């Protein structure tokens, strides 16, 4: 580094912020939000088309919009935002300079160029192959090329993150171990390397195949490796949004992890076992043995699920402990009742936690059970599940932390505060509706990725039950609600970032309220002998009972279908 990095001191947190890292965080976050807007719009069009009474788009546009929706929100929005999270969790939280900022910018440009190329390919209409692009269905070469460039860019960003950890360690910018949030981000980054490698292994040959250099790609092989990318990339999201939960709990409550050891072990479980999830997409495929399916689909005896269940206790538990230390000790739930529900960072984070666990988490484990998958595979239950994890979980958590990033990183006063107060509820409840109604429709057999559930032009007639039509109508309404929440978010964030009042160099933002740093009494709370978190124990007990009941109800459903062997 010829030029030494420049820093500023954050007046709220006292953190030393590398200005280049700050610029990169801003650029990645802004592009992320732009793609959220584009992908969200496509999502709304998809939902309106699947609303039987509206049936908005013609068939070719529907499949095009669905392809674009999947790519833009599942990959582009989330990975761009994760780049911002990685730079924040390394350079900012460790008070270090960013390693190789030029590489980081190069990665950013590659990602952007790749995202644009793939979007153009999709919009040209010859690449409506869905996000998964299962062979032998073929897209234009530029469709694959864009994704590959995007992935290479992301990989560069991940290595800048690793480099920054090394720099911080060498230059001794922090003492002891890295913070838990950085550890979570490290988990996400390690899974990202595996994910991107899988993507390269399968998409590069697929690109060559679409160019005519390779004559055949086995569809089963493609699917197995593609999901090594496709599902693992969702595990990057899980690791990243759990890190965001911890970050928000720390920033809003000054909460301290109950046990560093337990929380870090839970992240470690993700690193060790989450990659096995490719199997979730291969449970009703020919050519895989049941032994392979059972071991992989359960992440080796549900050890990654164990990780998530642990976070499900430690995150709310740390908030409860912090609130109780502040004197909110009445009954089981005073700490939760008197939580700052009008602070969108907290409201979004807590809803993300609850919805991810109850809707996305439970449905994922149930659907990923080898035999139960038979009654759910490729029905709308599948998108129902992952809108519970990726949208109600990841997107909502990322939106929540954006409310802290705007004043702290963009240095702008948040605008439209009343709107901001409501935004997480409108979006969160809308998305929860989408997830639940799609799962309902899937239980009734409705196929995913399908333009006409009335089968009006089919050679042979078939009718889904009328309840399925009701579900899809409700899903459409929930999607409109979520879209309103999405527009609110974009208006607030874009408005604030470009037109919000600039904060002075030493000025603390007045909103959202960030409490004074953890007091002394708090910093020792959570040591084993004093821990008292009855409210959290009640919450996880309710979760556990719901989980067990729902799990066995689905075995009951399975036992009622035709015997198969």
């Amino acid at each position, binding site marked *: 580094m010829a030029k030494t990095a420049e820093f500023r001191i954050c007046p709220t947190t006292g953190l030393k912020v590398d200005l280049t890292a700050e610029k990169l965080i801003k650029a990645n976050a802004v592009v992320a939000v732009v793609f959220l807007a584009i992908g969200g719009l496509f999502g709304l069009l998809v939902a309106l088309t699947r609303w039987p009474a509206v049936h908005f788009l013609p068939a070719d546009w529907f499949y095009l919009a669905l392809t674009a929706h999947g790519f833009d929100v599942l990959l582009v929005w989330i990975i761009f935002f994760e780049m911002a999270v990685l730079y924040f969790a390394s350079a900012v939280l460790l008070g270090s300079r960013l390693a190789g900022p030029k590489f980081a910018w190069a990665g950013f440009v590659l990602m952007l160029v790749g995202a644009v190329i793939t979007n153009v390919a999709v919009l040209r209409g010859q690449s409506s192959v869905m996000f998964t692009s*299962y062979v*032998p269905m073929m897209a234009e070469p530029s469709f694959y090329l864009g994704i590959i460039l995007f992935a290479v860019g992301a990989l560069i960003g991940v290595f800048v993150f690793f480099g920054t950890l090394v720099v911080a360690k060498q230059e001794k910018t922090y003492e002891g171990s890295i*913070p838990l949030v950085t550890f979570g981000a490290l988990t996400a980054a390690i899974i990202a390397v595996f994910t991107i490698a899988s993507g390269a292994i399968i998409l590069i040959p697929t690109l060559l195949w679409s160019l005519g250099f390779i004559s055949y790609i086995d569809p089963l092989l493609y699917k197995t490796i593609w999901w090594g990318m496709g599902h693992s990339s969702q595990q990057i999201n899980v690791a990243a949004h759990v890190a965001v939960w911890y970050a928000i709990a720390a920033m809003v409550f000054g909460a301290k992890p109950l046990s560093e050891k337990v929380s870090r072990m839970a992240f470690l479980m993700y690193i060790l076992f989450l990659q096995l999830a490719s199997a979730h997409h291969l449970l009703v495929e020919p050519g895989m043995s049941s032994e392979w399916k*059972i071991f992989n689909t359960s992440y080796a005896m*549900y050890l990654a699920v164990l990780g998530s269940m642990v976070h499900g206790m430690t995150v709310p538990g740390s908030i409860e402990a912090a609130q109780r230390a502040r004197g909110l000790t009445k009954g089981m739930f005073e700490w939760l009742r008197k939580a700052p529900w009008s602070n969108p960072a907290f409201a979004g984070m807590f809803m993300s936690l609850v919805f991810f666990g109850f809707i996305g988490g439970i449905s994922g484990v149930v659907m990923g059970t080898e035999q139960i998958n038979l009654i759910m595979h490729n029905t709308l239950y599948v998108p129902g599940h992952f809108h519970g994890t990726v949208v109600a979980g990841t997107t909502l958590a990322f939106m929540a932390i954006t409310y802290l990033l705007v004043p702290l990183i963009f240095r702008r006063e948040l605008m439209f505060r009343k709107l901001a107060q409501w935004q997480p509820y409108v979006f969160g409840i809308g998305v929860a509706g989408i997830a639940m109604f799609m799962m309902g429709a899937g239980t009734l057999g409705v*196929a995913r990725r399908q333009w006409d559930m009335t089968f009006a032009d089919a050679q042979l007639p078939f009718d889904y039950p009328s309840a399925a039509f009701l579900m899809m109508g409700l899903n459409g309404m929930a999607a409109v609600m979520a879209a309103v929440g999405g527009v609110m978010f974009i208006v607030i964030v874009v408005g604030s970032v470009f037109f919000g009042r600039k904060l002075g160099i030493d000025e603390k933002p007045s909103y959202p309220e960030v409490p004074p740093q953890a007091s002394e009494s708090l910093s020792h709370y959570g040591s084993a002998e004093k821990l008292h978190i009855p409210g959290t124990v009640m919450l996880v007990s309710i979760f556990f009972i719901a989980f067990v009941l729902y799990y066995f109800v689905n075995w009951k459903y399975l*036992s009622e279908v035709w*015997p198969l062997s």
Partner: protein
Amino acid sequence: MAITSPSERIWWKQPIAKIELIWIIVAFTWGLIMFFMMIYWHGAGEQNLSNEAYKITPVRFAEKAQTMIDEYTVRQENGFPVVHPPPGSDVYLIARLWQWWPILELEKDQSYRLHLSSMDWQHGFSLQPVNINIQVHPGYDMVVTVKPDQAGEYGVVCNEFCGIGHHNMVGKIYVVE
């Protein structure tokens, strides 16, 4: 805090609170139960995939299906042959853009070795309203032994996206007494 380095430098030697430990044990045990439940169902449950599958070319699969159609067609419906194969036999269902071919007529409470394969892209065998869903690949012949336990008329919807005619790909299976 989670955004600062752990306040206890030797954090890995800090004791774990009892309540956390209990939850870890409960969650771990639940994971084991769910894991062994899948294995248990292979023995005790009636809904399992055999995972019997063979590599096959689309041409060869189509020939086998045609042999069955030639031998056991009982009537025509909307241009589809309705095939009534003998109980216990090998039954072939072709998935192709955008048809399930032919229409099958099976007998209640009889077992059939149902072969599924695609002539072109991937398809999704979705038996409705029973809601049994199996992925169909080109080049692979997947064998599932089915035993219909209720008479009636069933739809076979395609639930893997297969291009612009995907939503028109509907087939039929009759189950008779």
